[in-house]
């Protein structure tokens, strides 16, 4: 009943046959696909990291360029402002000068007219005074 006989070798043979068949049929294909999958995942992961690094680099360069452009634009704007303010001062000074000259000429003219008027007035005042005296005295002035 419980004995070890020649079927021990038979069982050993059976087991070896099973081992060889399973190796060819199951272990090799499955290990191949598992390794392939691992490689794809690692490869994809590495590629994703590379792309990310690339994107970061590009973003950085873009920002850098933006900053440079801003700085340049500021410098340009300041320069133009300075020019404009200089021009403004020049125009203002010129206008100021013109205004002073004009004012002077007008003042001179007014002074002339005033002295002319005062002369005329002085002459008329004399005759007016004679007329008034004549009117008041009723007779001619001697």
């Amino acid at each position, binding site marked *: 009943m419980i004995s070890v006989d020649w079927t021990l070798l*038979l*069982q050993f043979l059976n087991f070896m046959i*099973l*081992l060889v068949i399973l190796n060819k049929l*199951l272990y090799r294909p*499955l290990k191949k696909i598992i390794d392939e999958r691992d490689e794809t995942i690692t490869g994809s992961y590495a590629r994703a990291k590379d792309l990310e690094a690339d994107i970061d680099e590009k973003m950085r360069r873009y920002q850098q360029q933006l900053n440079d452009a801003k700085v340049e634009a500021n410098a340009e704007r300041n320069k133009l402002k300075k020019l404009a303010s200089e021009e403004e001062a020049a125009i203002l000074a010129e206008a100021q000068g013109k205004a002073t000259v004009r004012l002077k000429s007008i003042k001179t003219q007014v002074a002339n007219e005033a002295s002319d008027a005062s002369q005329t007035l002085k002459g008329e005042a004399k005759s007016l005074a004679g007329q008034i005296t004549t009117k008041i005295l009723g007779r001619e002035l001697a």
Partner: protein
Amino acid sequence: MTHPFLFLQWIEQQLHLHIGEHVTYTWFVMALLILVAFLASRSITMVPSGVQNLMEVVVTGIDGLIEETMGKEGKAYFPLIATFALFILVCNLIGLVPGFYPPTANLNTNAALALTVFVLTHVVGFKKHGIGYFKHFMGPIIWLAPLMFVIEIIGHIARPLSLTLRLFGNMYGHEIVLMIFLALVPLFLPIPMMLMGVLIAFIQTFVFTLLAMIYVAGALEEAH
């Protein structure tokens, strides 16, 4: 104690083979495993599903266990260990189906497997360390070497013996108990024993495979 009716045994008796039920059921288990392997590897896809997925889980699990126990160079022994695991598991489990007999309840099957492990251990040891493999038997202290040698030899012979008898005792004992319970209360009493039988099947598979791995790892490592 006669066995109850076994399907394949009936077929075999029709063919007058006189080969013993453990061999016929071993062939049955082989056919079953080859069928599953064929189904799993029929159309291999990158994203697995169905039988391929199941077998991939099993293969990856055993691979992880081997790497844990034996390290990187243990990967070469994967086919043998995986076949041990699958074969013993399916053999143990079909014993729970009424009308089937577990081949592992027979001394010949277990002795064949255990002797395979034994021979493998020593072949691996000699291949890796050459004549220095004897240092494994010497023990840590040099002047105790003769005593240690005898003890190590006894220990090494005890290994296939224990592997065989452990598996045999569990499976054959389970069969005997089932037969007795079946004789007592046919429908209900064997059921708790069958539930325990499933647990025992898995545990014994795991123990056998783990011990095989440890023995080979012990032969691979450096002697102290």
